[in-house]
């Protein structure tokens, strides 16, 4: 274990304002600290400073001043264990054992010592698939445990965690959290995570950073959370009420092609998708979707739920006409047919864009233009919608709080902003089918209410909306029906979620709306 001492740390990356300003921090050896704050408050930067990586990072015209001591010595790379948000970023080798051995190899340990460290670190991290397991075949939770083992193999006295569970579903996230706590032992622990509720009760101290990169609050979890809940914080504090989805003017979300309310706009029957892993070690074919039925009705929001790897994103891609199912049928309502074709995967790109709005799981992959304004207008331009299309796009941009970023390259937006841009771009051309993949990730309370509001209002205005999500709050606030998946199959007993509020959609009086799933 190692004590942390930070004095006057200021970090100003090249070409932007400081992300950390004159920060002082003392963490006694063995203490467990949760670090929270709005996005852009410098949480990740502070972790990198503690990991001794800033000198390496800011060697261009950025500036780092101040002192960072870990265990009494200036922080240097390799001294602290660091676990990152996306476990794939930490994978460096083809087999699990080789991957854990990476740190000990860099430390020039001899071979027997390396493999003993690997065995101990994997046991400590509760990583059980074994050292010869191909890393390409690991699940998200297993990968994050492998990342933990890789960090532990260097026996760090300080363990730094940068949103280690944010890409995992709730049960897996809890299991990984417990593995971290068990493995940390008496190490000093500093964790950054948006999920305050999951960590608040297992840490000794909560540190809140403000938007300007200075410490706003610091103390025992109970006291800090009590203060945060009374303030008008945009953070998700446990116990604080979920905001109401915003009501969005219908002209911004009304579909161009309208179907009668309550009609089945799109249905899938017996959908099956078989995929072969590509890459250097092609795996056997795996069935990612198997015998799934789903119906999307106009006027309704259908939630697609399930753990990571359950097949939600694949189902969204099939329903959106972006992936041809291996077997089964996916058919749009006759009113949406293009050149007589009702299968979305057979539509041309322009036909698809007229009918479908897709919000991808990784919003940075959705970027098609070099500025935010061009991005949100792109579909309308491609479809020849003219000035009216531009106007609707610009209004959506404004609604989603991005108008002031209109001239920026979309790649420069934060993850949460990119996702909102994805929502605006998907709805700009007035789609009848809106298919959103994890639209609410990375949103604070205020922007969450807008994203949830856009989806719910689009349904009220006559679109059929499907949302694949881990966000139970979003399901509770918006969903009229639920398709629950597990291991690529439908879970039986799915239907309207208990908490689903009755919304005043034209479909309200059609009982069939509740049976969006036929198991």
């Amino acid at each position, binding site marked *: 274990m190692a004590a942390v001492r930070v004095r006057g740390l200021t970090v100003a*990356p090249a070409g932007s304002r400081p992300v950390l300003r004159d920060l002082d921090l003392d963490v006694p050896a063995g203490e467990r600290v949760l670090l929270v704050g709005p996005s852009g408050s410098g949480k990740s930067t502070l972790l990198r400073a503690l990991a001794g990586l800033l000198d*390496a990072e800011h*060697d*261009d*015209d950025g500036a780092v001043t101040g002192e960072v001591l870990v265990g009494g010595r200036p922080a240097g790379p390799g001294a602290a264990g660091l676990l990152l948000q996306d476990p794939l970023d930490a994978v460096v080798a083809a087999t699990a054992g080789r991957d854990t051995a990476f740190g000990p190899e860099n430390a020039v340990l001899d071979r027997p010592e390396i493999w003993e460290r690997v065995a101990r670190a994997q046991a400590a991290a509760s990583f059980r698939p074994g050292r010869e397991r191909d890393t390409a075949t690991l699940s998200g939770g297993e990968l994050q445990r492998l990342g933990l083992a890789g960090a532990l193999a260097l026996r760090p006295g300080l363990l730094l965690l940068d949103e280690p569970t944010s890409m995992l579903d709730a049960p897996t996230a809890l299991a990984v959290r417990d593995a971290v706590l068990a493995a940390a032992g008496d190490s000093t622990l500093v964790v950054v995570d948006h999920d305050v509720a999951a960590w608040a009760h297992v840490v000794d101290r909560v540190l809140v950073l403000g938007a300007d990169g200075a410490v706003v609050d610091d103390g025992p979890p109970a006291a800090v959370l009590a203060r945060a809940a009374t303030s008008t914080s945009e953070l998700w504090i446990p116990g604080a009420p979920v905001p109401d989805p915003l009501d969005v003017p219908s002209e911004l979300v009304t579909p161009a092609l309208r179907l009668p309310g309550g009609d089945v706009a799109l249905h899938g029957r017996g959908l099956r998708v078989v995929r072969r892993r590509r890459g250097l070690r092609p795996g056997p074919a795996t069935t990612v979707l198997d015998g799934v039925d789903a119906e999307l009705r106009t006027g309704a929001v259908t939630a697609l739920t399930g753990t990571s790897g359950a097949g939600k994103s694949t189902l969204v891609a099939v329903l959106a006409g972006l992936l041809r199912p291996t077997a089964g049928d996916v058919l749009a309502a006759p009113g949406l047919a293009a050149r007589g074709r009702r299968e979305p995967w057979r539509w041309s790109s322009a036909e698809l864009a007229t009918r479908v709005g897709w919000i991808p799981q990784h919003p940075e992959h959705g970027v098609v233009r*070099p500025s935010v304004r061009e991005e949100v207008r792109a579909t309308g331009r491609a479809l020849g919608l003219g000035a009216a299309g531009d106007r609707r796009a610009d209004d959506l941009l404004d609604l989603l709080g991005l108008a002031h970023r209109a001239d920026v*390259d979309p*790649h420069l937006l934060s993850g949460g902003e990119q996702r909102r841009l994805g929502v605006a771009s998907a709805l700009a051309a007035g789609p009848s089918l809106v298919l959103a993949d994890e639209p609410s990730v990375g949103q604070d309370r205020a922007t969450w209410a807008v994203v949830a509001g856009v989806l719910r209002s689009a349904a009220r205005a006559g679109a059929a909306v499907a949302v694949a999500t881990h966000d139970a709050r979003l399901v509770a606030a918006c969903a009229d029906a639920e398709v629950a998946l597990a291991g690529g199959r439908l879970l039986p007993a799915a239907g309207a979620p208990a908490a689903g509020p009755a919304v005043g959609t034209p479909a309200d009086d059609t009982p069939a709306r509740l049976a969006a799933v036929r198991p």
Partner: protein
Amino acid sequence: MSTTSTTPRSSALARGPLGRWRSLDLVTAAVLGVAFGVVFWGWDVVYNVLSPGFGFFQPAKGLLGGVWLLPAVVGALVVRRPGAALFTELVAASVEYLLGSGWSVGVLISGGLQGLGVEIAVALFAWRRWGAGVAALGGALAAALEALYEAFAYNDWVLGWDLAYGAAFVVSGAVVAGLGGAALVRALARAGALQRFPAGAEHRAAQRA
């Protein structure tokens, strides 16, 4: 060697001794190589549509060849250290080989020669100039070496056709790989993807100006 005081005409350089690669330099060049391997894979969609058009005049196919030289030019302009072009192009070629290229280990030889061509061009300017002109020269040299190799190893054409093919390839190397690669690196800097590289510093300097 302050990047803030550079005039727009000169290039921002890598920090520290040229031969001392940061981890970021190594990993970036390698991942760029892998990404280009994937791009070449996706490029088939285009290539298969375009190449029948050249069926009656094979040497014109050289005009498409510049695309295969992009990893070397982009790797060099991003990292700006000796060996970056060769390393990036070799990784891209390895991916092509491992995925089952029709030329088998031939792509490794091609990759080495193409990387070498760009290395020669940047070495001629002592690794101090990284503008579009140097990039175009690098692309042209890489194309010339590749055309020479193909003339020996693959093609049994009369000399005139070899020369026509080589000329088309060199033009493509200079324009598509050289000028295109330089434009690509500038676009990547604009997208904020090169913030910790000299090209990112150039972009910031240009914005300040």
